């Protein structure tokens, strides 16, 4: 897929297993730079595992992963994770204020986030400036997800991984996050890989889509493929989901 685009991430025969359980099987393909690629598929398809491989939270059992053309093994783990940011599904927060959470990526480097930049990040993700001092315990689900994305942006990642960030949100928050992802993609020129269960969302927001099932990539292409997939299993999967 997308052979005309420079790949931000490229997989070459990647396998991942836990014990005897094969989670990912022979994954080969690319996520294009500067584009939004959605990962869709039923639960247990291996989507989250795939994202964690890109961020170095996990390592493949075999095969190669290239980030911006460089083998993932060549990266120091810390450097890799700052280049490839990930917003986790549960949007975990450290205890404290929104500022404490935004400051976290820099605090890990013994640096401090300027308040002006923190406010600018809040603005980027569509949150009011007043929230900066608020305790994260008092945030709604949507606000937490936005803070989580803003926090990931602090490291200025070239690639942004989003793991089902809208799965527990109401319709309004969901739309806001969708607009935000598109905005980030345009403003930061970051490649975005987004796991979603919402096929309509994948169709509308994604430039490209990977459909995964049982640890395999069964179909890839421009997102419109979801309207008329070739693979029989994918046809069954999307039936009734895309309106």
């Amino acid at each position, binding site marked *: 897929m997308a052979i005309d685009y420079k790949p931000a991430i490229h997989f070459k025969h990647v396998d991942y297993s836990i014990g005897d359980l094969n989670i990912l099987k022979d994954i080969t393909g690319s996520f294009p730079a500067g584009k939004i690629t959605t990962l869709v598929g039923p639960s247990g398809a291996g989507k989250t595992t795939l994202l964690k491989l890109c961020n170095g939270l*996990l390592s493949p059992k075999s095969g190669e992963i290239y980030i911006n053309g460089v083998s993932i093994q060549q990266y120091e783990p810390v450097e890799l*994770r700052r280049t490839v*940011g990930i917003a*986790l599904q549960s949007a*975990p927060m*450290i205890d404290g204020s929104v500022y404490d959470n935004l400051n*976290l990526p820099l605090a*890990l480097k013994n640096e401090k986030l300027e308040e002006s930049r923190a406010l600018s990040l809040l603005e980027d993700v569509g949150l009011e400036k007043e929230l900066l001092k608020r305790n994260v315990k008092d945030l709604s689900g949507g606000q937490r997800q936005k803070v989580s994305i803003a*926090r990931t942006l602090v490291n200025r990642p070239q690639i942004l991984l989003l793991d089902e960030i809208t799965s527990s949100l109401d319709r309004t928050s969901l739309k806001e996050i969708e607009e935000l992802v598109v905005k980030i993609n345009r403003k930061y020129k970051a490649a975005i890989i987004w796991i979603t269960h919402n096929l309509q969302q994948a169709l509308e927001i994604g430039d490209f889509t990977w459909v995964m099932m049982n640890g395999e990539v069964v179909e890839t292409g421009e997102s419109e493929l979801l309207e008329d997939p070739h693979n029989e299993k994918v046809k069954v999967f999307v039936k009734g989901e895309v309106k």
Partner: protein
Amino acid sequence: MTYLTLSITLIFVVIPLILSKTLNLGLEKDTIIATIRSIVQLLAVGFILKFVFDSESLLYIFLMVTLMIVAATHNAQKKGAAIKGITWKIAVTLVFVEILTQSILLGFNITPPTAQYIISISGMVIGNSMVLSILFLNRFTSEVESHQDQTELILSLGGTPKQAIHRQLIQSIKASMIPTIESQKTVGLVQLPGMMSGQIIAGADPIQAVQFQLLIMFLLLTTAAVTSVLLGFLSYPTLFNQRMQLLKN
């Protein structure tokens, strides 16, 4: 105390047995096993101590302390089975605590270098260190498990394993030390420590017994702090691999 009066004290075992039987607590078997074990183990240790004290041999003192460390390590390691190499980590911790405390006690002439003092104090230090190890490992494994998402968050943002586990480590160290600190706050008000009571019963001057008890209590503060901190810093690196990934069991 004669063996006859000692056997009369078994009344204190009969009372819980009757209660357990009457209320169907199902603790009769465990109570009987605990009673028999305590009689056999304490009498055995009494005879061994008498032999060691009489001999005044450094080798026997060393063997006695080693036996204590081996038994304490064996007991504590069950709680940290999830942590790779936990047995030697506990053993190193206990040995370090023992060497540290005895060096201070003997180096400053606080206690005389006799078997009577070294073995008795070592027993208290190693026993306390074992309990602290169990408390720490219990808390640490549950903290690591329940805060996996936070650990992963910090790693994902470019944090090191030490940064990722820092909160859980500190919480576990604090939690394991709290019982020692709290019990010292109420000592003398709520309870008289067993060792001090024993000395007083044996006819020692209460003020001297208190002084000795204070020494032991301060000693146990160091034991608690050093055990949990050392064991914590020895344990956390094994939760991660070379690529700074959290290893899941």
